[in-house]
């Protein structure tokens, strides 16, 4: 992301001009823009003209529009951000108040105006514009018959393809079916790597699996590469790294990112840092349960007592539609910082972020034990579900 211009006045009102450069920037934009903001960007609009005789012609024109955002859609797979809203600046093509949906495009600048810029939003801009943070890693987690090809960027884990093949088991007398199925599966995984991994950007490719699947696959892949002359693979052989994982499901990525060899290679990436922080939280919960808490109610009370050492908070809490709720979380983050605590904002697109989002989206390690928090919740029953998309519907 490129910051082209920033004007924020003392009342924290103002505009920022940004230019997204890669797909991940869309994710940042998605986190920045909330309902009620106004966005100005160039777009294509279908305009209908009626001639004097009554016949109408429609034509597509590129024009610059400013809309007041009413709806935000983000496609995580394609990294496309669509903003729906009413036009607030009339021009020759579009009337005031007409609805338009803006597709933010790469390498086209947009201007974002917020009635109030909070620290979280400003931080997000800073983070998005930091070039050092772009460290891309590709990871293939696999087991027999199941593989996920993922791209891990600074703030997102994208499952590029999921391969599910049912491989016949070995049975008496017919091992061929098993081996044939396996070869077919490896072929598919290899093709998927060739298609989805951009070796110009990706620093390393992790191949993780239980047992010997990764070794078998690695062997197969380079045999095939020599046979079929896949230059791309042969040239980047040094980028491949074999790691252990307990299964081929997506969340075993967490184990992969904890692997010491992997940590050494991608130490400064956000993904690995988040996994580590969450692990610390769980360790604390195991050893000293009175020093680790989750859930909004507990955290707010702990923050009141300035007890929070590290605050883990998922960014989906800041994306909520309710302005007051967002403000509440922003204030919480600020108060923790003021009290000298550390705040880690998890990306809900990472594996650990997903887990945190499930865990009410907010958790904290305390400076000192607060057993009284634990006792207090016997009084009321409903404390759960604060997380944005976690709906706790008891339907019976």
């Amino acid at each position, binding site marked *: 992301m490129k910051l082209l211009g920033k004007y924020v006045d003392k009342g924290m009102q103002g505009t920022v001009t940004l230019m997204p450069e890669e797909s991940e920037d869309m994710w940042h934009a998605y986190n920045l823009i909330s309902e009620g903001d106004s966005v100005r960007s160039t777009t294509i609009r279908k305009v209908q003209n009626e001639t004097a005789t009554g016949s109408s012609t429609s034509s597509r024109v590129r024009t610059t529009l400013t809309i007041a955002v009413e709806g935000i859609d983000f496609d995580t797979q394609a990294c496309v951000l669509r903003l729906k809203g009413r036009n607030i600046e009339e021009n020759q093509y579009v009337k005031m108040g007409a609805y338009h949906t803006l597709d933010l495009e790469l390498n086209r600048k947009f201007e974002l105006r917020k009635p109030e810029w909070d620290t979280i939003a400003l931080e997000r801009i800073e983070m998005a514009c930091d070039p050092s943070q772009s460290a891309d890693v590709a990871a293939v987690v696999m087991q027999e018959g199941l593989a996920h090809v993922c791209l891990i960027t600074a703030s997102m884990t994208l499952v590029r393809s999921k391969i599910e093949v049912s491989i016949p*088991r*070995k049975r008496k007398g017919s091992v061929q079916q098993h081996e044939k199925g396996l070869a077919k599966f490896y072929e598919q995984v290899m093709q998927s790597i060739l298609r989805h991994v951009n070796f110009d950007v990706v620093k390393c490719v992790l191949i993780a699996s*239980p047992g010997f699947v990764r070794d078998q696959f690695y062997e197969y892949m380079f045999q095939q590469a020599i046979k079929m002359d896949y230059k791309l693979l042969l040239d980047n052989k040094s980028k491949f790294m074999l790691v252990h994982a*307990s299964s081929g499901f997506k969340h075993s990525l967490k184990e992969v990112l904890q692997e010491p060899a992997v940590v050494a290679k991608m130490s400064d990436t956000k993904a690995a840092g988040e996994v580590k922080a969450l692990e610390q939280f769980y360790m604390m919960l*195991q050893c000293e349960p009175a020093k680790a808490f989750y859930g909004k109610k507990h955290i707010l009370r702990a923050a009141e007592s300035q007890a929070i050492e590290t605050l883990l908070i998922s960014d989906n809490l800041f994306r909520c539609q309710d302005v007051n709720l967002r403000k509440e979380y922003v204030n919480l983050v600020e108060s923790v910082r003021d009290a000298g605590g550390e705040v880690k904002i998890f990306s809900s697109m990472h594996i650990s972020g997903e887990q945190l989002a499930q865990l009410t989206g907010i958790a904290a390690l305390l400076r000192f034990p607060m057993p009284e928090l634990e006792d207090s919740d016997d009084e009321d*029953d409903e404390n759960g579900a604060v997380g944005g998309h976690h709906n706790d519907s008891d339907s019976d």
Partner: protein
Amino acid sequence: MSRHRIVRTMDYNDEYDGYDDVYGHSVDDDHCISPTDAQQWLYDRQRGQQSISAFISKNKDIKEEDTDNDDDDEDEAFAKARRDSESFQMPELDELDQAKLSSCVDEVRSVVGDAVSERCIVETSMRFDFDIQKILDEILNEETKKTTTTPAKSKTLTIPASTSASASAPTPAATATTVTQSKSVNKLPPPPPAPAAPSSGSAIAPPTKISLKEPRRGFDIASPKTPSSPVVSGRNTPVDIGIGDEASRNAAGIFKVSKDQAQRNAQQLYEKERSDQKSHIHMIVIGHVDAGKSTLMGHLLYDTGNVSQRVMHKHEQESKKLGKQSFMYAWVLDETGEERARGITMDVGQSRIETKSKIVTLLDAPGHKDFIPNMISGATQADVALLVVDATRGEFESGFELGGQTREHAILVRSLGVNQLGVVINKLDTVGWSKERFDEIVTKLKAFLKQAGFKESDVTFTPCSGLTGENLTKSAQESALTAWYTGPHLLDVIENFKIPERAIDRPLRMSVSDIYKGTGSGFCISGRIETGVLCVNDKVLVGASREQAQVKGLTMDDLSQTSVFAGDQISVTLAGVDINNITVGCIISDPQIPIPVTTRFQARIIVFNVKVPITMGFPVLLHHQSLIEPAVVCKLTASIHKSTGEVVKKKPRCLGNNSCALVEVETSRPICIERYADFKELGRIMLRVAGVTIAAGMVTKIR
């Protein structure tokens, strides 16, 4: 195009399957004849043959002709009754008598209705010289007599309906009474003196009609189990039986099955098919990696003559070439190149042996930590387990310590419902058949197994050597061993396992553990029938999508079968469903009582030793039968006291080591699961994280 259909050989069951779902219940459109009409009036050669052969195959033990069999008696009486009403010729009489007779018959009819045949009335009226009062007395008395005999008759009649196997030998007492009574009816005894009022008589008559007709529905010669076809069942319209209340209660009652499948009596079928066979048992072999499981099993197979000398020789030569001669027996079960090259088992190997009274399916589980998912899928199919431990110094200890597979496997099989365990102390030859070592291991294991939940009486300990074959199929020869060991050898231990109860009369449930292309058309799935019965041509529902499929073939141990029962390890050839829509771990179920499909359920779990506590939102891998599915513990409902089951704390923040709790688990994709209370086999779950089993539990509630 209906003109061009070969109506004669059409299978109407297939043809009209799902017809009603699509078109409602009107019968026109492209079929020129309604299914019921067709069934009633059209001669279907194929069907006739089927039903005859079915009759023969199913009623082998019925005696040809029983002279005093009351069935015949009944038939005769009934045939007579029918002749009476259908083809009775009025006797030749003069005009006056004719008029008297007709008025008399009318009179009697007005009192007794149609219950009595015309012939009977005519005969009686002629005998009593057209005296209305006397005729009525006589007829009604006879009727009441019949009513008293019918209960006895209907009793003997119901026996073939419920158990056709025992039908050939009805209770002699019942037969005797009915015979004498029906004889007395035929003899037409003189009318009793007491006159019965016509009004009371007419009150009795209608029940007579019912009781006579009830057991006779459909003039059926064959037992009600056989499908009603025009050839065997006469002219009755086929009645839909069996899909009554059951279906209307169920949302999935829309799935139609053949009547044969709907009305099957599982227990009876089982007795017929399996009473003369040895009982089946599935045994899983578990233990730490390199404990010698595969070698032990390979040697056992060789010694019991299930592996030919030639094959064994081949293995010996090949393993020698690789410099791994000690693996020659393991190669019997480890067949893939990868497994042989690495010298470890990776997937469950399967083979079978026969003992004196049992057919044992051996499941050779992998011992390596990474392959525990495979081991779990194997263990869900097992009835009993054989735990192999390495007696070598240091090896036993490493397997038994925390993180060793001896421990984890034993706990896993226990929580998967295996209660009988044979412990094999293997490689005892490496410590010189030392009794001290044996005892040391036994005491350690005993304490642990008791804690894991095994009853002491269900656990046996056997010393042996898988490589040398000592104490496998023959009693110990080695003097060092015979000096102190007199117990049974391994084959005897296997022989002594008790056969668990099979839930045959429950609705069908089968878990799929493998999918492959079979020979010929369609594809095969293999797995274990958990409950119920499956026959060729049955309709089944597949997995969470509830797609309907038809069973085209059944094989068990490479032998084709017509029906298989709970507990069997089988492969099924399916038609009507795409191979891509079926995955390992899905459940095949009965269309009439389908398995619940859900993404969220409540379970009662026991947390094992965990590194980090379980909280809300904890991502886990859910193991259910052969299914492995990512899931999230989405709610901690309550923590429970381990032994009393009382709620200790509502909504705990986290679950630590060795705790017990009620939790809710949510999967991303819908899965088939049953409550533990309904189906023990399908209500067990296992939660694993990062290659470690963190909890086992049972399903208590399905949303």
